[in-house]
């Protein structure tokens, strides 16, 4: 009786079902891999702005443990909120900048960037005197500075008042905070890189790989929206060192600048250095015609 059931039709059915099940299992295999990297809580984590304080504490604790597990370094990750009555602005004196790239290096170390790609939020453009076209600036110079006939223009996130990167984000993983800093929720970012394409200042960076940093080089003073070690596949950018500046400290790039070309402060404070520069120097912004309204200003001494 059973032999009668082994028909050509049944054999094909069994073969088809087996192949189908195999293909299905293969298709779901990446999910199994994901669980090696993440857990359900991370996967189900809410958007930064929807987390209540208990949930935030839990997230920070999980991230700290995760960092210790992966990098063998004990770090403190905090959630530092904007100060009231504070609007940050930055100005850079192009007459004084010598293009030494110490700001680039300081950013690299402060913000726990990947060591293998030597990532940094700042690029220094070597510009020919007489040109203001930043697209023609050379970032790859490797000779003694300052070179005759050139000036140097460090470019980082301009923290625009009208940020194109924020409007293009399909999932609202990036937004502007009340003190003017444009931030990224690295856990909410889906890595589509629209913002990277939208930024006219080449200010955003994509993590093609998980950052590699030796444990003894990790900066343990971290915050959720700034310099905690980013996951793979997300976009990041300069955040005016908010883990420092929101506590009154100067940004790392400014402290590293040997010439004092960088001026940082709260523009709502009428006696601040930044306010003096904005009121007394002929400041300009990059690509003003785009209407991005940067809060990063440049000026020449006169």
């Amino acid at each position, binding site marked *: 009786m059973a032999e009668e059931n082994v028909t050509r039709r049944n054999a094909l059915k069994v073969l088809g079902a087996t192949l189908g099940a195999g293909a299905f299992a293969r298709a779901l295999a990446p999910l199994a891999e994901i669980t090696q990297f993440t857990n359900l809580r991370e996967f189900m984590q809410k958007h930064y702005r929807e987390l209540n304080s208990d949930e935030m504490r839990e997230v920070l604790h999980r991230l700290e443990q995760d960092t210790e597990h992966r990098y063998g370094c004990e770090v403190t990750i905090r959630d530092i909120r904007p100060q009231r009555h504070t609007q940050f602005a930055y100005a850079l004196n192009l007459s004084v900048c010598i293009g030494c790239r110490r700001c680039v290096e300081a950013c690299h170390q402060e913000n726990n960037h990947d060591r293998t790609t030597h990532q940094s939020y700042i690029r220094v453009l070597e510009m020919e005197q007489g040109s203001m076209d930043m697209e023609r600036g050379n970032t790859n110079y490797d000779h003694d500075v300052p070179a005759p006939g050139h000036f140097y223009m460090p470019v980082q996130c301009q923290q625009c008042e009208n940020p194109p990167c924020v409007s293009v984000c399909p999932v609202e993983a990036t937004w502007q905070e009340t003190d003017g800093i444009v931030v990224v929720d690295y856990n909410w970012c889906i890595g589509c890189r629209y913002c990277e394409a939208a930024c006219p200042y080449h200010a955003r960076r994509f993590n093609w790989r998980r950052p590699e940093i030796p444990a003894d080089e990790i900066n343990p003073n971290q915050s959720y929206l700034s310099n905690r070690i980013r996951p793979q596949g997300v976009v990041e950018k300069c955040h005016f060192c908010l883990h420092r500046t929101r506590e009154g400290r100067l940004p790392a790039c400014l402290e590293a600048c040997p010439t004092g070309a960088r001026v940082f402060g709260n523009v709502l404070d009428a006696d601040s250095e930044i306010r003096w520069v904005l009121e007394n120097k002929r400041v300009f912004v990059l690509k003003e015609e785009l209407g991005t309204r940067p*809060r990063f200003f440049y000026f020449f001494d006169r």
Partner: protein
Amino acid sequence: MSRPTTPPHSDALASRSARGAALVAAFIAALDVTACASRDADRFSASQDADGAHRLADGGVYASTLHAPRQLVSILGTTRNLQGQPVEIRCATCHDLLVPPPALPDRASSLGGPHAGLRFDHGGNACAACHDPTRFDRLRLATGETIPMTGALRLCAQCHGTQYRNYTHGSHGGMTGHWDLRSGPRVRNHCVDCHDPHTPRYPSFRPMPPPLDAPARVETRHG
């Protein structure tokens, strides 16, 4: 080698400066200016002492102090040790600091002895333009007032007023610490931290390495 002290296309930028001013005004106006009103103005009533260091009136506000330069007690001589390094010679090795020195020469090239190798490239200044001719360890202002070596900022400011003005407003010279002096102190670099008074031009040097992720260069269609 000239530093770009004037902007390129200064005509173009001059016309931009008016727009720039409008831009800044718009920027500040666009921000929450009502916040200014609630700011405690007294806390920011800064006064400035002779060294250019900000001393803030309110005891609750931290100070912005000047990084004190190292007291000059020795020079590097012309002779070299076995490692090829110049030998450090203490002033008191030759000079009795209590006895006035012989008349200072007009220019550094006529110096002899351990001072013979001194490189001098600071305009046409004579030694006595800055140094007190009667004391090895003191400087002399144009007014005739003598000041210690560590007070060099006042001396430099006599000629370099523009730089001094920028310095006092935080746009010249490095600093570390806090932008918000209510949160913590700040330390400002001294002139001589970066500029050798005898050869004040900031030396050119090798920068940190270039980035590894540089974007492709944009070739504009119209050259």
